[in-house]
C-alpha cells in the first residue's frame, strides 16, 4: 500500500466517522429546520415552462 493510498484511506475513514458523529447528534447541512414558510403568501405553480 502506497503512502498516497494510506492517506486516502485515512481521509475515507475520517469522512465515515464524521458522518457517524453527525448522524448520532442529528446534525445535517441540508435539514429543513427553520426553513421559511411560504404559506404566509406567494403563489406557486409549475416552473418548467
Amino acid at each position, binding site marked *: 500500500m502506497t503512502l498516497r493510498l494510506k492517506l486516502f484511506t485515512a481521509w475515507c475513514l475520517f469522512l*465515515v466517522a464524521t458522518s*457517524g458523529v453527525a*448522524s448520532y447528534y*442529528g*446534525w445535517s*447541512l441540508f*435539514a*429543513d429546520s427553520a426553513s421559511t414558510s411560504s404559506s404566509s403568501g406567494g403563489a406557486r405553480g409549475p416552473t418548467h415552462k
Partner: protein
Amino acid sequence: MTQPRAVTCPSCGGSIEIRAAGYTVTLGCRYCGSVLDVAHEDVRLIKAYRRAVKNFAIAPGARGTLFDVEWEVIGALRRRSAESGDWQEFLLFNPYSGYRWLVLAGGEWQFGTMLLDRPENGPRSVSWRGGDYVRGDSETATTVTVLGEFYWKIARGDEARATAYTRGAEVLSCESTADETNWTQLIPLDDSAVSAAFAVERKFVGAPQRRARRNDTDDLPMMFLFALIALLAVGLVQELVSRPRVCTESTSEIIVGAPSFTTRIGTLEVRRAYQFVTISAISSNINNRWIDLDYSLVNRQTQQSIDAYGLIEYYTGTDSDGPWTEGSTSAETLIASVPRGTYDIYLDGGAHGWPNDPSVTVKQVKPDEWTVQTSADAENPWAPPEKVTVWFTACTGGFSWGMFWLIGFLLFAVPGAMLWWRHREDD
C-alpha cells in the same frame, strides 16, 4: 547533421524543420502541437494535441553526446502498460550512426540499440551473440503521446506486445505488432550521464519522482474502490446510528382554497441527546394543487417550538410538446438536532389551486363551528368543497441524502481529480 528541410504547418502556419529529411514520416509541430504526416507532399494534418513538450524529460531538438557520439533527440513517446505504468522513449538521431533510443522508465535510464541480427529463440530464454537472456513478463504497451519525428507511422493509441529478456542489467526488448517484430538491446545509463548530455527537466530527475508517477496508475483503481466502500459505509452508518426509530401516523383532509388550519399530527419522544425527526406527507388525490405544510414540534416540558416547512405540489398539463407533469405528491421534511424530550407535532396546513384557488365561502354558524362552501362549479353552487387527503408519518431518526451526496463528492473528488490530471497530461 543532414541539411534540414522546412515545411509549413497547415494548422498554425509555423515553419517546422525536418532534421532527418528523407527518413521522417511523422512530424509534430512545435508551435501548435499538431501531428503531421510529412510522407504526403501536402503535409496532411493527422491530429492536434497540446501541452506535450512539458510532459517529457527531454524536449525534441535537444542535442547531447553519449558514447562519444553527438545525438539529437528528434522524437519522443510516452507509452503505458497496465503492469509497468508510464514510461518515456526518446528517438536519437545521428546521420553517421543512425537511430538509437533513450528510455526513461521507473526513474532509470536505458540506452537502446535496434538489433539487426535476431536472437535465437529457446523455450524460456533467447540467445544473442553468445549470451543467454531469460524471458520476463510480457505486457501490452500503448502509445499515449507522440511528439517530434519518427521513421515510421505512429499515432496515439498504437499498441505493441512487449517482452523483456534479461541478462544481468542488460535487457533485450522484443516488440511485436501485426506487421513486424523489432528487437532492441537496452543497457543501463547513469542518471548523471544523461543529465550531463541533455537538458533534463528537473521534475524528471531522480528515481523517486518517477516511481511516484508509476503509482498514479497502480493505486488509482484502489482509491476509487475505497471511495465506493466508504460511501456504502456512510449510508449504513447514517441508517444505523440515527436510530431508534419511533413513529406516529395521522391523516388530515385539507380544503383547497380555504384559510390554513392547525391540527395535531401526533406525539413523539426523542430518547437521545439529539436526534433527527423526519415527517413524511403523502397525498394521492392532488392535481394542479400545492399544499403548504408548516410543522411545529412543541416540547411538552419547556413549550419551546422547533419549526420546519414542507411542500407538496403537483401539476399536469398539455402543451405543444405534449403532456407534462411537474412536482411530486409527497414531501419529506428532515428536522435536525431535536433535543431529548416529548414533542407534540402540530401542522399548520393550507391547500391552493393553480392557476387560481377555487372560490370558497367560510361562514361561522356557531361560536366554534364553521361551514365552507365552494362556488367553483357554477352550475352547482352548493357542491361540497374540494378536499385533499394527506397522510402524515412522523418518526425519530432519519437519513440526510444531502450529507450522503456531499460526502460522496468529497470521497470521489480526490481520485477523480487525479484521473482528470492524468488525462490532462496525456492530451
